[in-house]
């Protein structure tokens, strides 16, 4: 079997095992919400201080509601998959025991100690790469996102942003951009994996990249 066909089947396996994470449009509302939150907290923002918390709650609630609607659209358009129970135990454990605590510790360090490097930048860079690898690989745009976060680590050192709240706000904005653009590109990748359905019953079907049907 040619390597190209093996690669296609590997991709089919990876997408099926991680179907939820490849439904990129689900993440776009959350990305936009984070961008709104970052904008409302920016020093130049016209949003009054007293409005920041209600705006945060409202945008996040709306993002979750829209994301749920998008999830139902994916189910109607692409079908449903139920994962194997316990299939991703290692990923779940790593996420809750290592990744999330590391991101939290990094945010606390950046928020309170205000070091001259943004520790969260490198923490998010590692987390994004771990996410990409553990959810089926591919999607090279996440490598670019990782590099962007790693570069952000040195933004306070280079004087591009002041350490503390401003630096964290920039991080939230980049995260929002990452969710938005990454989600759109994930959706594009998903559409590439799923060929157009030819619903005329011919003797030959079309499994994308895996030859014809006999």
């Amino acid at each position: 079997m040619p390597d190209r066909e093996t690669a296609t089947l590997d991709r089919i396996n990876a997408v099926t095992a991680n179907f939820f994470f490849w439904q990129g449009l689900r993440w776009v509302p959350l990305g936009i919400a984070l961008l709104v939150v970052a904008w409302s907290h920016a020093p130049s923002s016209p949003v009054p201080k007293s409005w920041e918390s209600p705006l945060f709650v409202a945008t996040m609630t709306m993002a979750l509601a829209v994301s749920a609607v998008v999830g139902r659209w994916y189910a109607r358009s692409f079908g449903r998959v139920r994962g194997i129970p316990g299939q991703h135990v290692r990923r779940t454990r790593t996420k809750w025991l290592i990744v999330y605590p590391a991101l939290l510790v990094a945010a606390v360090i950046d928020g309170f100690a205000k070091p001259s490097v943004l520790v969260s930048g490198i923490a998010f860079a590692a987390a994004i790469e771990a996410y990409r690898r553990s959810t089926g690989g591919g999607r090279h745009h996440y490598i670019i996102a990782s590099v962007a976060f790693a570069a952000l680590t040195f933004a306070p050192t280079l004087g591009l942003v002041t350490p503390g709240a401003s630096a964290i706000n920039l991080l939230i904005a980049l995260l929002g951009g990452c969710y938005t653009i990454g989600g759109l590109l994930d959706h594009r990748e998903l559409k590439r994996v799923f060929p157009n359905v030819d619903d005329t019953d011919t003797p030959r079907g079309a499994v994308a990249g895996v030859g014809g049907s006999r």
Partner: protein
Amino acid sequence: MSAPFERLAELDRLVHEPARLAIMTALSACERADFLYLQRLTGLSRGNLSSHLSKLEAAGLIAIEKEFVGKVPTTRVEPTRDGRAAIARHWKQLEKLRQATLEWTPDAT
């Protein structure tokens, strides 16, 4: 040692057929999937996909369950234990075959 291409005959043709291999590969990665997902993933028409699923069901490699989600009829497809074993065995055979092909030289036969 037989030439690698002679081992092709040992492959399970029911599973090795491209569309069915894609279906079984997808099903091996989940507990179950619905008809629409498999149709979108393979790009097959309803008729072709039904035909392939019938063959796999007749061989005992998958179980098909029809039910209503609200008012919408849904077909759910689940690999059986034999089905999971068959696709795992098939991939192992393909990998061995690939390895043998890489190492094979005409003089070695």
